[in-house]
């Protein structure tokens, strides 16, 4: 079956139904599907917008609670023209970025130190297992008391929540080192720096990247939580203000903004992961598929 991937063969040629030829037919269909998938996805998004527009109009949901999509769009447009919105977005991104950076650096350093010494790993395991599942929102009252609505209270929550994500992944990565590679490095008499650079780091990097990606999402959630509940300046605080003043379309517009921010964080994190790990098995296999 040599039909190239780009030829749109809609009717399957006879003989491709069974045997090895079927694989080629599948490939053609897959290429076709691949072209169709984004279109279908767009249709899904458009369907959501239409649904949001129609539901309040026909009275299934009251427009007081769920304003039509057009009104949300207008509120969003208005929002984009406000200086206060951009300041809030900046505040949110600052809290998120700073918190994430601190958590990643601390997580990687702590992970490398703990992971390179089996004794330390054994001693700290139970403590890590205990501290990790503690919900960081439990720290909200402490943060309020210590720092009020300052940036620090936001950072306390963000760093606590995302630090564990990174640490646990780094520890898993350090444990995954191939014993053959380790022995090879030793027989070539690599120094400890060389071992870290050429054996440990490449092994742990995929795990670190996963940890960073997870931490990026968690950090965003906690940044916005802190703003919403504590009242530190940022998108979450704008949302709380809009909600108490009854500006319903504005509430939805802000929720949409946070959602888009979440999508953006995810996409950027994945792109960075793919760039940093382009040499790694998992990425190469993914590219072939």
């Amino acid at each position, binding site marked *: 079956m040599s039909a190239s991937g780009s030829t749109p063969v809609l009717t399957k040629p006879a003989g491709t139904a069974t045997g090895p030829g079927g694989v080629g037919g599948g490939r053609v269909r897959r290429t076709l*599907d691949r072209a*169709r998938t984004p279109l279908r*996805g767009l249709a899904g998004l458009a369907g959501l917008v239409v649904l949001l527009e129609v539901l309040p109009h026909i009275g299934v949901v009251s427009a007081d*609670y769920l304003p039509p999509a057009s009104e949300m769009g207008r509120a969003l447009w208005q929002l984009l023209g406000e200086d206060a919105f951009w300041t809030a977005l900046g505040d949110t991104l600052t809290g998120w970025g700073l918190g994430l950076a601190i958590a990643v650096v601390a997580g990687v350093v702590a992970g490398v130190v703990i992971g390179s010494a089996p004794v330390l790993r054994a*001693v700290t395991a139970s403590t890590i297992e205990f501290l990790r599942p503690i919900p960081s*929102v439990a720290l909200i009252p*402490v943060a309020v*008391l210590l720092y009020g609505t300052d940036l620090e209270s936001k950072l306390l929550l963000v760093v606590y929540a995302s630090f564990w994500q990174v640490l646990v992944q780094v520890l898993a990565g350090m444990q995954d080192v191939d014993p053959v590679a380790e022995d090879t490095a030793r027989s070539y008499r690599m120094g400890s720096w060389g071992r870290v650079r050429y054996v440990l780091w490449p092994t742990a990097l995929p795990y670190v990247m996963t940890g960073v990606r997870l931490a990026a999402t968690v950090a965003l*959630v906690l940044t916005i939580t802190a703003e919403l509940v504590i009242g530190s300046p940022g998108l979450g605080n704008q949302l709380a203000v809009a909600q108490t003043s009854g500006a319903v379309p504005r509430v939805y517009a802000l929720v949409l903004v946070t959602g888009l921010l979440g*999508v953006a964080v995810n996409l950027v994190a994945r792109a960075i992961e793919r760039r940093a790990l382009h040499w790694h098995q998992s990425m190469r296999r993914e590219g072939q598929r």
Partner: protein
Amino acid sequence: MTVLTLARRTGLVLGLPAVLFAIWWFATAGSTDFYVPPLSTILGKFGEVWTGERLLSDVVPSLVRLLTGYLLAVAVGVGLGLVVGMHRGVRDVLEPVLELFRAIPPPVLVPVIMLFAGIGDTMKVIVIVSGCMWPILLNTVEGVRAVDEVLSDTCRSYGITGPSRLWHLVLRSASPQIVTGMRQALSIAIILMVISEMFAASNGLGFTIVQFQRSFAIPEMWSGVLLLGLLGFALSLLFRVAENRVLAWYHGLRRAQRNP
């Protein structure tokens, strides 16, 4: 010999926690700082605050909301995930929409759902469901997609279709992913329970702790923070026990594959 290793292991497990606890205890022992009371005071308050009527009026309602919301989210997430995962067309149409919904930080749903459902128990349950169903849903979709083709064909040639195919093949092979999603959802559920109660409530753990903080009842507040921490730890422990039971076959399989 075994006694020695046992002693060594308990030493490793309990050593650092004991040291940290002792540091906390002695560092704050004579503390006159209003915000950082001695640990002995906090522990004293702990028994006093959380064992009496507050157990029934605040802790139990919180746990009931948490469990109701979580179980509903699991049901909805797995149910929808099966439908979406098994139908290519549905998946293509819905994927971007689902990704968008998942990317919305769950806490921002609290003000939105308050518009619909007021500030009662229903609101909190809906908040928990709508926040934690996404990881379950998307993981179920992934799990269903990744069903082994050979197994799938074998089922077809043995004429296993319909509900028994769903139960024995699809759900079973997707269960490791479903459990991963459920684990992520559990921590989201705890966060949402606390936040929805901090935001608007008349009882519950989050509400009580914020009340303590606002009335500057600092030792009581710290005892609440401790309780939330213990709750998070206990729930994750319970989850792991349940996971080890349900996924025993999978962990065994993985071990066997790793050391052939």
